[in-house]
């Protein structure tokens, strides 16, 4: 029930996408060297953030490409998406989770005028 920004196709309805869970979880480089506890954490433990959440999406119904995005998990508003391998953008500290990055920019410009 929200819009997702595909870095290639732009803002589209969420139903065009599939969710891929929390982003930036790196597979341990040497699984044989770590404890069961650490391996279990890697597979199962999640941040499950209430607030700004970095997550993976794939544009299943269109370009089929994977990307990362920041979304506010209370309002379900996506701030912005970014390509795999890129650093996450930083929403403003006072972001209320109600506007996406593009609207936020427009509002800021409107306020200046």
């Amino acid at each position: 029930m929200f819009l997702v920004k595909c870095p290639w196709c732009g803002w589209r309805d969420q139903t065009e996408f599939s969710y891929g869970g929390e982003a930036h979880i790196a597979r341990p480089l040497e699984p044989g060297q770590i404890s069961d506890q650490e391996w279990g954490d890697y597979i199962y433990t999640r941040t499950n953030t209430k607030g700004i959440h970095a997550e993976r999406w794939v544009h299943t119904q269109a370009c089929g490409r994977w990307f990362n995005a920041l979304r506010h998990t209370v309002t379900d508003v996506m701030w912005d998406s970014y390509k795999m391998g890129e650093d996450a953008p930083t929403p403003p500290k006072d972001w209320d989770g109600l506007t996406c990055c593009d609207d936020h920019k427009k509002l800021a410009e409107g306020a200046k005028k």
Partner: protein
Amino acid sequence: MKKYSIFAIARNARTHHENWERAWRSPDPKPHYDVVIIGGGGHGLATAYYLAKECGITNVAVIEKGWLGGGNTGRNTTIVRSNYLWDESAALYDHAVRLWEGLSDELNYNVMFSQRGLLHLAHNVHDMQEIGRRGNSIYMNGIDSEFLSPEQVKEMVPIINLNCRYPVMGGLLQRRGGTARHDAVAWGYARAADAMGVDIIQNCEVTGFKIEGGVVKGVETTRGSIGAGKVGVVAAGHSSVVAEMAGFRMPLESFPLQAFVSEPMKPIVDCVIMSNAIHAYISQSDKGELVIGGSGDPYISYSQRGSFDQIEHVVGPVLELYPIFSRVRMLRQWGGITDVTVDRSPIMTKTPVENMFFNCGWGTGGFKATPGSGHVFAHSIAKGEMHPVAAPFSMDRFHTGALIDEAAAAAVAH
């Protein structure tokens, strides 16, 4: 606590029902409790009740950030059953069903537990194999379980359309399954716990913990600091948020799950019908409303809303199976935040913080377990060691690998 009875109704009728005593007090928090339970839903209140009743610990507070039963306790589809595959789950959920059977008497509060039968439909060969395996496993665990042919399904639910887009090939019936009144469960436990001295403190949100040397000493709340000998966290969808305050992470993800009710109508469905393959479960409340639930949203969220496309995923199959409902209007729709584990089994566990216990991860199906969960969790907190029924559900299983995989029996395909 004055007993509820027909005589009480008659007595109060004389004073125009203006002098009923309040069901529970609203005390200010004391500076210290032996046990503080975080979360005033069914599971939390049941925990407090059994701590007071069976473990002799009455210096207990239940703190709730909103109002009693306003979270998932008031948002579920009220289904009770114990038709689970694995022995560990059978022990836990059937323990709950046995407690449900005497609950109204025990609490002196009508929780409207109605064992109207729970029918699980199979629509394809895989479903038939799944109910075949699970049905026999349930039977071996001493829990009632019957296979129904499509004709027997039709006899039980005359309005069903067997030859629709989702043909009905068979069903698995648990006659002891059914429904209960969800609010009454919270209120009944609250009233009975309060009568034994448990303080129920609403509008009191936890903001942090006082932890000294790895041992929990108290809880910081919006109504001040509260000292605690032990802390039981029963915070459902917000368990990860509470765990973060205590400095650790949980193997949980929180998803919205929605449900809806129709306008009330004459009795037409006298059992609970559910199905794994098509994400729709339906029953009729005593008020006459159809209670319909479906699948969760596929992304984590704390929005307590749920998305429109999921409604269509549920309503479409419901109309295929029961075309008679095509002109029924829906009255309300809502969402709850379900804390889901990867194996779809709950977590009842000790934590890295001494004297802090977590009861969470009930995901999409916690309501049915309310009495059992509260009972074994209370004993675990009192003893400091997990109750034998609760022990397999410890958080350790996520690194030992001893998962209890109930994804099929969760009755919502995941």
